[in-house]
């Protein structure tokens, strides 16, 4: 009871902060009732591929003319694959059979063979591809760019800034992400939900999950993470006095308030104390849960995705029914040695997603969760000898029971590098679909109404399709 009151108070205080900082959400709170649908349970899971995914080595052309164009554009990459099993040759690919094949004329596509588990999800209708997504302010073509006739997102091609832009629609330094905004909308609509467990990362703090109400919580990939010295009597002493000292130490660690007015001290106090309290709640719920039987690969991405499924499983005990997760996977900055490193990464990714799908099915949440990929940027179609450099647009994948799958959404530009969809030098893909359209489709499914989406995604109105239609 007292807890609920406190949460209400926190929520209201945050709304006040928003208004005072002239946030759009804040001003809206005065004019209308928040309408995010928070019925049932739903979660979004972002798999961020840090470094910049080479879209052209992920979604491959399957028809002979298109494949010839790829070879022509990046002979060094294709030749190196010849030395490692020729995995990018048509003879070693399996064609996707999208329901909307007709949208692409005679062009056919295949996923890199390491993505086979993902191809299975695609073919069964549980996954879809969204082609050529990237940060945009407004629709853009090469001609418009060269004529300076279009506003472009700042600091294109820079890792940290484009990560930040994907996550928060602003360059590094932006404080609130669209994942956090989605969570905020749900928390404001449902103040009884616990804000401590609505925005969860498994690989470190990211602006994507930062909200005004949402607090970011990190779940480790090893399950509950107790404080040994508190958990075990042996260290401080197996006596009543030792127990009293342990309790006293525990409350010392859990302090969230300090008389010191220094802002750094205040933040450190809250960070330590908050971590202690939230870990206790998480660990208690975790230890009461039935262990998953699904086997996850023992890879960094596999362990993280297991932690996500475990956390979704205990969401009722954590008192939260709208969650956004961020899972991180590094290594995609394939300037060099791409033909060795990228296939290994893609294999881990696809195997992780397959286990994720099985795990969610095991806990009956496959229809309540949507996973999607994101990445700094795509990469240059023209190679540098044994790798590729920073690009812009890239193809992404969405998966989950509610995905209207076996389809390719957005656009997959052909490999005519002189076309309007490529920059002049190095053939960097100019996005056809903005990150905000991609996000809006996810947010709409998550429960946000059009006003909340517009508030979270400021440039959405510059595009004529606010929902890409890949979710039911």
């Amino acid at each position, binding site marked *: 009871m007292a807890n609920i009151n406190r949460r209400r108070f926190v929520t209201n205080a945050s709304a006040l902060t928003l208004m005072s900082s002239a946030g759009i959400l804040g001003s809206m709170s005065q004019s209308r009732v928040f309408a995010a649908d928070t019925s049932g349970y739903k979660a979004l899971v972002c798999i961020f591929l840090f470094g910049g995914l080479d879209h052209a080595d992920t979604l491959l052309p399957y028809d002979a003319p298109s494949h010839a164009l790829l070879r022509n554009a990046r002979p060094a990459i294709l030749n190196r694959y010849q030395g490692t099993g020729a995995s990018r040759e048509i003879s070693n690919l399996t064609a996707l059979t999208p329901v909307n094949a007709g949208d692409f004329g005679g062009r056919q596509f295949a996923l890199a063979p390491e993505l086979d588990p993902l191809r299975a999800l695609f073919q069964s209708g549980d996954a879809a591809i969204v082609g050529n997504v990237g940060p945009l302010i407004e629709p853009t073509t090469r001609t418009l760019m060269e004529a300076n006739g279009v506003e472009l997102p700042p600091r294109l091609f820079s890792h940290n800034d484009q990560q930040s832009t994907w996550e928060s629609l602003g360059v590094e*330094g932006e404080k609130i992400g669209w994942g956090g905004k989605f969570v905020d909308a749900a928390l404001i609509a449902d103040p009884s939900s616990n804000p401590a467990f609505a925005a969860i990362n498994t690989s470190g703090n990211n602006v994507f999950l930062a909200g005004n109400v949402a607090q970011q919580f990190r779940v480790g990939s090893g399950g509950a993470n*107790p404080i040994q010295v508190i958990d075990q009597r042996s260290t401080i002493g197996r006596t009543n006095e030792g127990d009293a000292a342990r309790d006293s130490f525990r409350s010392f660690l859990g302090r969230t308030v300090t008389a010191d007015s220094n802002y750094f001290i205040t933040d450190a106090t809250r960070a330590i104390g908050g971590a202690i309290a939230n870990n206790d709640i998480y660990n208690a719920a975790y230890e009461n849960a039935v262990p998953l039987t699904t086997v996850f690969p023992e890879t960094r991405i596999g362990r993280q995705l297991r932690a996500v499924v475990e956390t979704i499983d205990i969401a009722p005990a954590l008192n939260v029914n709208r969650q956004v997760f961020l899972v991180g996977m590094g290594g995609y900055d394939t300037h060099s040695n791409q033909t060795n490193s990228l296939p290994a990464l893609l294999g881990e990714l696809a195997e992780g997603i397959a286990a994720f799908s099985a795990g969610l099915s095991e806990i009956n949440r496959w229809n309540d969760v949507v996973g999607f990929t994101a990445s700094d940027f795509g990469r240059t179609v023209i190679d540098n000898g044994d790798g590729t450099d920073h690009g812009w647009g890239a193809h992404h994948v969405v998966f989950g029971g509610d995905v209207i799958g076996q389809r390719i959404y957005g656009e997959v530009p052909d490999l005519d590098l002189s076309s309007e969809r490529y920059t002049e030098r190095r053939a960097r893909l100019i996005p056809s679909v903005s990150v905000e359209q991609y996000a809006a489709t996810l947010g709409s499914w998550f429960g946000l109404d059009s006003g909340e989406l517009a508030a979270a995604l400021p440039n959405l109105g510059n595009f004529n399709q606010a929902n890409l239609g890949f979710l039911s």
Partner: protein
Amino acid sequence: MGNQFRRLGLVACVAASAVLAACTQSGGDSGGTGSGGGSGGGTGGPPANASVTQIDSQGEAATFLARAAFGGSMAQIDSLNGGDAANWVQSEFNKSPTFYLPTLIAREQLGEDLDQRAHSRLIWDSFVAGDDQLRQRMVFALSQIVVASDRESFVRPLTYAYYVDALVENAFGNYRDLLQDVTYSPYMSQYLTYFKNRKGDPNTGRMPDENYARELLQLFTIGLVELNMDGTPRLGPDNQPIETYTNDDIVGLARVFTGFSWKADRFDSNNGDDDAEYSALQSFADEHSELEKTFLGTTIPAGTGADESVTLALDHIFAHPNVAPFVSRQLIQRFTASNPDPAYVARVAAAFETGTFVSDNDITFGSGARGDLRATLAAVLLDASLYDGSTANQDDFGKIREPVLRFIHWARAFSVQNVNSGNERLLGDTSSPEDRIGQHPFRSPSVFNFYRPGYIAPNTETGQRDLTAPELQIVNASSTIGYINFLTDFIYEDTNQRDDTLETYKPDFSAEIALADNPAALTDRLDILLTGGRMSDDTKQQIIDTISLLPIEAGTEAEDRDRRVRLAALMAVNAPSFFVLR
């Protein structure tokens, strides 16, 4: 104004005479210009003839050692107390450096099969126990700016040590030389993929790898937007920051970093000469772009050779006015302040620009050459604001200490014995936030370091005020628990050692045990050792109350006292005042 004049006078005086003392008397504080910009002047400040950087208490000494070294023991604190911080810095500048490569080569020559990350154990050893503390601290700082993480699977210990030694060598040298040496280090070339990077090929369409060109500009030298000397962004007519380069600059600069490979007889040699893995990169004219290289408003003419192109390019980039504030602000963040006052940044940047810094007790630091890191570092550590009381109690001042600094401070405060990091399995990789500390020296996740200098933490007091707090980027629920558990293992001597008989990292708690019967006195001592006298009353009281619960009983006194001391130490290293240096 008065200060400025005095300093100009002093530089002339030093030039004319090697006798510093004479200069101090004639050009020093006698003119009544105050001692270093403190607002107090008459009351409350140091005596008129004392230098502002004079260390007047154990707490000040401990704080200084946490800033300029990796922390210190009570003996080191007492030795500094009463002296002048500037003298300490000067003596550190004169110490001989601890290099890494010679040690590893010697070990290999003795027949040791070096572990793939043998360099990393040595780094711990030097940070914890090296005598050249300021240099090693600077090496750690530089490793977070000119980043080449050893996380990669292709790391080899001698190749990596060559890169580390470039930081050691130039830590008290010039930033321009540092850039040169780092650029030619084989590990950096592998890490940022210009190793064996070939010129473009019009037949296949192949273009040079752009990786190093981009990160050199963005992360090592000028950053993305034009800066004022105080580190704030310059704004254009549209009131927006002005970007320093375009993608065309990157494409142009990328041509410079072509044609480099091992020291070898040919470009595509697999392993190069016997000493190639720890020798400077070699250029090969055939693989170097002969096209003109246009970037940042300059053009290196077509046909310029590889080495000359690199020198011209680095000279041109280094001449950019951003370099001083860009590097200075980050150095301040590594040593003293997470969100430095722009005026402080401007003072340090001025030292970088002029290559000179004069301390309040009239020691002149630096060679006078732009980019001099002695001048820059002295300006960071000896800035009057750190000593005159003007920042110590400001709510927006302080440095959140990264986990590596906190752990090593603990180790040094209790003078750990038998520092042999190779024996400690827990130190093999401390990157995991869950069961280690979430940070390992020289092992950041990417070239973007462990955290970003511009990071502002959401939902925080600092964030609300737009204060940067890079280190908060790696503070989370996992790392908080991981750190507690990790420190518990070390404090209670329950680490995972390869050979237990070596008793590595054994803390010396004898002085604390002598105070265990008096929890208040014990806590006061920990306050000096770990928090520089800045532990809050609340924290102190809770430590006293908690350890007082543990009785000291007849017959088990030694064990009981030990129990109290270790718990008190564990609590103190989890105090917010231990996390924040100010």
